[in-house]
């Protein structure tokens, strides 16, 4: 097991290097520089700015310089927010987005797995149709629609919950978490229903049932671990996607998280900020995919043996 973990962590190094390299050159090749503006920028200014941020050097030299910097843990200064370092910006937004993503994920897993498994236990009954219909509505309802709807109903009509903010007014974390979690809940519900149905028709479950075990025991002890494999495979990238995709929710609810930084950075061509965010997110993605693979292995006894033996 430890060997497996070590090898996966080692594999992460080339992946990160590829991501950094590709992103670096993509970002530099993209049209529009960080300093172009609505009003014409005098050539003197462009020259001065490019010199200051070393953009006047050949790209390969900039690239090597950048690698050197990040090796020292320095993501450089933001181009667009003079005076702010990328490290500082990420650290300012990260705790907020992480908290938001955590709540959303818990909501998604709870609602998703419960309703999906419930539906699979009694397929083609009300217990199946109701949660699955809701799930489909959840999928149809992208967060840019659900968010404003919730705000209008609970924030403005009923005046129950705050319409914006994060940690400023009591209760302001509820609507954003629900908005972000719902779409994923719907996905998970569908995937877990499908996975469970698959497993429930397998021989070993029939055997277990034939032994006269209680249905809940069958589900929890035998079916769940196989049935949730597709969900777990989805969760890895989903969690990372949640972090990056919180942009929409952060915009609707005026939350100062990193999702907004990422999108603003791309629009602003804030090279260092884009790169810093990408490196950060790809590390997260690698970690979460690894965790999700670990859980898959753990859910699948044969694979587990394979990994521990080989």
């Amino acid at each position: 097991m430890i060997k497996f973990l070590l090898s996966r962590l080692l594999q992460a190094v080339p992946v990160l290097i590829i991501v950094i390299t590709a992103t670096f050159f993509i970002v530099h090749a993209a049209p529009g520089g960080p300093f172009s503006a609505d009003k014409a920028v005098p050539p003197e200014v462009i020259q001065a700015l490019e010199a200051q941020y070393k953009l006047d050097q050949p790209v390969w030299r900039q690239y090597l310089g950048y690698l050197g910097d990040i090796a020292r843990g320095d993501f450089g200064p933001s181009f667009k927010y003079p005076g702010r370092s990328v490290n500082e910006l990420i650290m300012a937004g990260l705790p907020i987005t992480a908290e938001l993503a955590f709540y959303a994920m818990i909501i998604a897993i709870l609602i998703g797995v419960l309703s999906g498994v419930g539906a699979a236990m009694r397929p083609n009954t009300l217990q199946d149709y109701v949660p699955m219909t809701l799930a489909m509505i959840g999928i149809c309802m992208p967060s840019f629609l659900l968010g404003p709807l919730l705000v209008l109903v609970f924030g403005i009509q009923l005046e129950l919950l705050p319409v914006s903010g994060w940690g400023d007014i009591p209760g302001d974390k509820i609507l954003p978490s629900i908005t972000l979690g719902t779409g994923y809940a719907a996905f998970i519900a569908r995937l877990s229903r499908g996975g469970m149905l698959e497993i429930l028709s397998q021989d070993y479950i029939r055997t277990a049932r034939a032994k006269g075990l209680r249905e809940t025991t069958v589900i929890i002890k035998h079916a769940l671990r196989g049935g949730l494999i597709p969900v777990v495979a989805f969760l890895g990238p989903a969690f990372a996607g949640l972090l990056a995709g919180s942009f929409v929710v952060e915009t609707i609810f005026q939350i100062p998280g990193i999702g907004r930084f990422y999108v603003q950075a791309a629009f602003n061509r804030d090279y260092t900020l884009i790169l810093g965010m990408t490196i950060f997110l790809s590390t997260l993605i690698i970690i979460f995919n690894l965790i999700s693979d670990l859980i898959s292995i753990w859910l699948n006894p044969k694979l587990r043996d394979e990994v521990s033996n080989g």
Partner: protein
Amino acid sequence: MKEISLILNLSELLKKSINLLKLVFLAQLLLLSASCGDSQTNVEKGNINGTLYWGNGTEPQSLDPQIATGVPEHHVISALMEGLVLKDRKTLLPKPGVAESWDISDDGRVYTFKIRDNARWSNGDSLTANDFVWSWWRALQPALGNLYAYMLFPIENAQEYYEGALTDFSKVGAKALDENTLQVTLNHPTPYFLQLLDHYSLFPVHKETIEKFGAADERGTRWTYAGNLVGNGAFTLDEWEINRKILVKKNKNYWDSDNVDLNEIVFLPIDNMVTEERMFRAGQLHVTSSLPADKIAAYKEIDDSPMRISPYLGTYFYRINVDVPHLQDPRIRRALAMAIDRVNLVEKITKGGQIPAYAMTPPGTMGYFPESSLQYDPERARKLLSDAGYPNGKDFPITEILYNTNEGHRKIAIAIQEMWKKNLNIDIQILNQEWKVYLDSESAGEYQISRAGWIGDYVDPNNFLDMFICEGGNNRTGWCNEEYDDLILKIAPATKSHKERLEIFQKAETMLLDDMPVIPIYTYTSIQLIDSAVKNFDSNIMNHAYYKDIYLESLN
């Protein structure tokens, strides 16, 4: 057995996270119900404490007045710093700021400012004429990357110094005669010079603070952080949480602090207009920076509507790339301009009381009302097009309108596309590009027709017309007319009277409209929601806010 224990662990973990979540939500709900008794909105709280909650658009990129550009930055900086001259909040006529008085020489080239004795920095240091000289020296350092350096160019030799033709700053026309006397010499008599002094690029900055955090011309040092920044405005910077809020508090060392009523201003960066409007409705904001066009009708219906629509010094227009073969003929460009039904466009699409524009300069800019031969006339437009070789639009190449991704621009382009189709029978494609790509395409001349807007830096026709000189960085149409350049660069500055000057501008404007490298569409308005408690916040065409005048008065 191992498996079962693992499953138990998993369910344990799940339970724990559920409990955690429950706890958090419960805590939130408890707090919510606890606060229900004294449930107060920002606006209610603010009215009691003297705190103004201000919707400020996007997150300010910098609070360094010699680096910043943009409206959100301007709002915050103008609370923190002040120039030699202020403006009347309604008429925008100059009134004393840091300078208590000034003299202008007879030839209009030499200004002598008397700086008030009690002018001080927020740390208590006294503010002197030398501070201005040093600040303007800094503003002209190319390394700083000051996009508004050109605001100082009316000052003698400033442009030469900035461009490196001159290295001796003492030759630039800004001198401290003594602690309290600043003498400024200009290249030409510049009627709008006093106005420029209220622009943040000419604000004074605190030398000791800047040098404490880095070199004077170093970009992005930490001197603008909360706790570091020393300014001379009515407020001081107390907190700056990026993407969350900027909090400024009343500055006790401000020379006129007795007349400042607000205790605090909270600037909230809200880049989504729809969110901002909802926050206003929920009582989170006193003032919004904008209002979505589709909400205007509903707000018009309300009695005592919080909506305020006022004229704004800016023109929405389309640039035409005159180097595109089928757009080279001025008759075609005029035909396009005449085939736009501006009245319908502003009434049905933009809906914000915008004024149809038939000239580049907004009417009434420094008493200048441009005359124009342009009007909505599909009949003549068709005739012009036919004269240019395309009767009934036959064989007219498919033409592209470029705009940067934005809901408002999209709607306008769609409406114009259809108007040109209907009136001229020509096919138009619409192309949107992301902002930076659009800027690249436009400045490289890789477009046919492109959407543009210009907001005045100062109230003078010059600001709108000098864009289209041959070498103008903001021209971008490829249009070049030497006679026009002469009018703007040589003849207008040399005029002796205001009337004569305006006549020159009219002449230039007519040339521009005859050749039509740009199609004026409408004059902007600023549309805001303002809570009824906000007083002394008058509208003006620059949409400048003078926070020192504002006070909050609640009926309750």
